[in-house]
């Protein structure tokens, strides 16, 4: 019938990114003691989230 396909698609991608934000720093990056480890990953994920939010809100109209 309550969420658009676009919301389902980008919402699903958001959930995947959040899961990556939990998993990768505690596994693949747990020994990378440089700025390009977890610190950089979380910045990249945050920027991707801003991009997804832009896609989700750009079509709102009054």
């Amino acid at each position, binding site marked *: 019938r309550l*969420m658009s396909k676009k919301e389902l698609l980008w919402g699903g991608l958001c959930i995947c990114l959040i899961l990556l934000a939990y998993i990768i720093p505690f596994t693949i990056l747990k020994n990378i003691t440089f700025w390009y480890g*977890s610190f950089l990953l979380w910045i990249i*994920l*945050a920027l991707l*989230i801003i991009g997804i939010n832009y896609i989700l809100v750009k*079509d*709102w*109209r009054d």
Partner: protein
Amino acid sequence: MSTSLIWWGIVIYIVISLYIAYISREEQQKNMAGYFLGNRKMNGFVSALSYSATTYSAFMMVGLAGLTYRGGVGAFGFEIIYFMGVTLVAFFGPRFWLVGKKYGYVTPSEMLGDRYDNKKVATIISLSSCLFLIPYSAVQLAGVGYLLEGMTDGEISFTTGAIIATILAIVFTYFAGIRSVMWTDSLQALMMIISSTIVVLLLVNGLGGFGKFFGTLSTEHPKSLVVPGNGYFSFTTFLSLTIPWIFFSISNPQVSQRMYMPASLKSLRRMVLGFLVFGLIYTIVSVMWGYSAIMLFPGLDNPDVATPNLLSSDLIPPVLGVIVMVSIMAAAISTIDSILLTLSSLFARDVYGGTGKRSNEEKQLKVGKFIIPVIAILAYAFAQLQLNLIAVLSVAASSGLIVSVPAIIGAFFWRRGTAAGVISSVSIGGLLVIILEITKFKPFGLGSGVWGLVSAIILFITVSLVTKAPEQKANEFLEYVRTAMQKHTKSA
């Protein structure tokens, strides 16, 4: 940094803020929507700055910096996970805004009470919000007291600091309701972001630039760049801290109420995107602030004194140090006044308005205005008393409010949700959170927020399935949301 310089900083901040609050007044606010929602006519830029100032309290430059000092990059991850959760506004924002405009909702709990066709839902969620957010405000007030006392070696007492913060929060709220709160919030948000960014750039430059900054961290404090690092951020700790904060944007009424206020969906869009840009910059700045403390003052017993130490260091000019200190104070006050206004609207609309007495808009507004100083004085008293239970409730605030999340999601996406499901999930879930916080019991190493959410989901679904849903109201509400979303978004 002299005490007289700090007093001058505080006086200048108060004068400018009061002027902004004064000129923010429009015509007399005669109804609830006017006083508490700015007549749903707030512009996007002010909404974004105010949302930022309300969300980011003194915790960022003091607490998050201290958390970075204590546990390293995990603190950054914790805040970024919260940041990612703000995406919920992109889903719930237009829905809140549309139903708010159609049905005239002033508070999120009023919306839930109407959607589940039971005023008790609104009353219980409002009381639950007060239970957790008044102690949270008390801790913010105490934060201002400690900051001023610490920065002046006791020349400005804890009590003086807390009283200044309480009075300013009441005045900012009283001048013109949400209009004065949002305009003073905007000023405070700009103070927060500009002063903290400049001071961190100065610090990084003083420590040899970005390359050397991270090089020193890598060689001398390598564990501060990984999780679990020194062991502080174990996976279960990280999970327990972050789960309640993912849902902050819909579970905390002082921010979810903001989704009713923008003048249009275009303004709401500006609010979302503006906040995200502000939030990412402020988060990075706060974590870099904490990293600077690791390098300049290794071995502090109490990480919370990292910020006062940094502000007093030789790398920061005294005038800039005072500006940053005042901006931290502003961050606390801008959070307190928003909570104050939201809680008074919840009380007037859902507790007083839900008692069955003949309460019209005018009476509710009178009650709302009366209750503002009452809540503020209560928070101040809690801050002064520093009771253990208050600290427990404050820490539990994000966990305690998470129990309303299933009801909020269900309101828009599940026709079978019932008032009994909401009442049982919010009351039993909230009680479980308080018990776990008081006993400090962590089943499987997971914090109260995780168990609060799990219990609320189970209770909401099971109780709803065995009780009768308000089908007519649910169908009408959901049908309106569906058609309105199709109309207002291109691809819905």
